[in-house]
């Protein structure tokens, strides 16, 4: 059963491994989880820059009141496609498809995921859906203009490419389900001998909770989008009041998925942070079980709070009260994690390397995003700021400040393992500072603008909002220049950087016990499983 008698195989990194195919085909038909992870990384990075450029175009439009660079209808198309790309093609798959694919099997001592071919198939489905989504921008009826939320009845009536965009979201959801399914089976069936659930590092725990959400929530958006498509194609009136339907029902069904989807974005992000903080403090993670189970708790309670998106849509008072209460409840496990991270740092020997800088700024931005989320969760304040720039600021702090910064933290943390090369620290720190300043300049003014009454999704505004909008736009340009510097530094690191040792950060989890980059089989010898994965002695 154990493999410790197997002869030592000569080490060949997965990047150089020769398989069935050569050249490009050895990548796009690879079933190795590490190659698939890199395929996702390149695809998602590309989509992220497309989405970011659309975002910049919006910021340019909003730099002055009135029509600046585009017509209102163009603006509607741009914020919709920006949302579709960023949500469905970047942040939902982001961490779990890239780092989950690469590191989940390694962290639990497995050679690969449970279904490698299905894994490759998921990537192809993802690419197919992404092509559809991007194409919806260019087809003849014009880009969808409903916002990424596709609210009925407008989405059943507008003449734009809604069918194509919703089909894209459906296909992308299917890919997400298959990835989640694959990870769940992997965690249940592929753990190395001796690796019990409570010996797993906390990133796999986060991926585990995430995978359940992907599996159980995504079908709901699937059926909702199918109903919407049927409504547009065949005039089946589920949501159009003229045909007997109920548009509010669409909102319910949409958020039954899309609130849990926020946790698909943020849970793996928390998992990444939980890996990074102990490494750079050289301390055992504080409250291992609390962090592991809080992921599961967030996933569970997260299914029951969707109504907080709909306080102003028409809901009974009891329902609003109920959803508000549960929204406050779901904040508790998130806060538990923050306390645990801070306690892990306490009295640790903190090493301010780039991954840790990103991790700490994640905590900072996540606290701002999380507490403003509570403002939105309580009915009275929500009604005041509903559909204003405040919402835009809040969810960008969660999604970009949270998931995005965690993604940057993860890439700085794991890049030496993935490519066996190290990037330049000084340039990484400068890029981090620019990104952090740019991010806050971009989004913080929008909290204030929202309070003052600036609506979201408007291409025009009253002159009184101009100061805030200009600061925000300047922040946008600073942010993007920081991002470019960061990517440049990482690419240069991969191409010309110093070779990285197997364990550059003195990490304790399994990925640091194998060569950088890993061999195709990950473990040429059976891994030694520690009782506590964060044991630094």
């Amino acid at each position, binding site marked *: 059963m154990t493999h410790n008698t197997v002869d030592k195989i000569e080490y060949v990194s997965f990047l150089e491994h020769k398989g069935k195919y050569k050249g490009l085909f050895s990548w796009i038909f690879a079933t190795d989880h590490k190659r698939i992870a890199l395929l996702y990384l390149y695809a998602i990075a590309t989509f992220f820059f497309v989405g970011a450029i659309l975002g910049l175009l919006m910021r340019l439009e909003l730099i002055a009141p009135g029509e600046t660079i585009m017509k209102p209808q163009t603006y509607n198309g741009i914020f919709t496609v920006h949302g579709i790309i960023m949500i469905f093609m970047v942040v939902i798959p982001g961490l779990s498809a890239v780092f989950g694919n690469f590191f989940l099997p390694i962290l639990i001592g497995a050679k690969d995921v*449970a279904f490698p071919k299905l894994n490759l198939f998921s990537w192809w489905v993802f690419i197919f859906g992404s092509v559809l989504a991007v194409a919806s921008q260019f087809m003849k009826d014009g880009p969808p203009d409903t916002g990424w939320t596709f609210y009925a009845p407008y989405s059943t009536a507008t003449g734009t490419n809604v069918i194509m965009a919703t089909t894209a979201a459906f296909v992308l959801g299917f890919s997400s389900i298959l990835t989640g399914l*694959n990870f769940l*089976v992997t965690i249940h069936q592929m753990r190395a001998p001796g690796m019990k659930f409570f010996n797993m590092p906390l990133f796999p725990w986060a991926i585990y909770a995430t995978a359940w959400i992907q*599996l159980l929530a995504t079908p709901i958006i699937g059926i909702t989008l199918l109903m919407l498509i049927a409504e547009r194609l065949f005039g089946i*009136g*589920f949501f159009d009041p003229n*045909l*007997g339907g109920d548009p509010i029902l669409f909102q319910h*069904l949409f958020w039954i998925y899309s609130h849990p989807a926020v946790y698909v974005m943020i849970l793996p992000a928390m998992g990444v942070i939980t890996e990074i903080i102990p490494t750079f403090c050289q301390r055992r993670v504080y409250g291992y079980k609390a962090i592991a189970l809080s992921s599961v708790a967030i996933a569970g309670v997260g299914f029951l709070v969707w109504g907080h998106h709909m306080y102003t849509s028409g809901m009974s008072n009891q329902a609003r009260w109920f959803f508000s209460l549960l929204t406050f409840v779901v904040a508790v496990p998130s806060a538990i994690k923050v306390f645990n991270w801070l306690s892990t740092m306490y009295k640790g020997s903190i090493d301010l390397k780039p991954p840790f800088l990103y991790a700490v700024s994640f905590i900072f931005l996540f606290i701002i995003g999380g507490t403003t989320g509570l403002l939105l969760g309580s009915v009275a304040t929500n009604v005041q700021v509903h559909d204003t720039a405040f919402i835009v600021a809040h969810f960008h702090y969660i999604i970009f400040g949270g998931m995005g910064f965690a993604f940057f933290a993860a890439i700085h943390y794991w890049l030496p393992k993935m490519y066996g090369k190290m990037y330049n620290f000084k340039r990484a720190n400068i890029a981090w500072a620019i990104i952090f300043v740019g991010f806050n300049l971009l989004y913080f003014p929008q909290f204030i603008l929202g309070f003052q009454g600036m609506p979201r999704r408007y291409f025009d505004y009253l002159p009184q909002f101009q100061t805030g909008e200009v600061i925000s736009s300047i922040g946008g340009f600073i942010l993007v220049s920081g991002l470019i510097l960061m990517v440049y530094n990482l690419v240069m690191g991969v191409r010309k950087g110093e070779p990285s040792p197997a364990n550059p950060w003195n990490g304790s989890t399994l990925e640091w016990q194998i060569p950088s980059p890993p061999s195709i089989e990950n473990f040429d010898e059976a891994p030694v499983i520690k009782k506590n994965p964060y044991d630094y002695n």
Partner: protein
Amino acid sequence: MSDTNIHTEEHRNDDASKLGMWLFIFTELLLFGGLFLVYSIYRAQYPHNFHEGSLELSVTIGAINTIVLLFSSMTIAMALTAMQRNNKKLAMTMIVVTLVMAVVFLINKYFEWGAKFHHGLYPGSDLMALLERGHLLYFSLYFFMTALHAFHIIVGMVLLIVVLLRVKSNRIHAHKYVLLENGALYWHLVDLIWIFLFPLLYLIS
């Protein structure tokens, strides 16, 4: 040592495949679960219209289809048992019988739908536009749910045809039959969904 090694590895993969299929079945149930939710909301809103709507469906055809699907669930289970007992011929026969039952179901459905279309009752038709709201929703749900279910029947049939070919070429045999097992599981799911659809659509009058 090496023998047991291979055996345990294989056994372990079977468990993984089965777990994967169960998880996939969860997602399918939730997909239809969303529809059942919509159904129950609209039925609570328009109980009379739903009652009248169901009067227009033929309980006989629905009942025949229910029996056909239940029978097919039995035959696919028999195919699995036959395979476990190394009776390849019987297993293949039973899979073929299951496929025939699926075709019978679809033919029945075709005539049922055809009759509705013949009367001008289909989504987007002039007649549908004249119906009362609840009535309209009932038929919208009827067409949408049965169409989605029929699509799942077809997916299940494709899966069973793949299984059949693999049994024929001995790639599924008495010691390696997890694909047949998963195909059977999926077929039971398709059956189960119909067991819900039948009373919800046909028997509420």
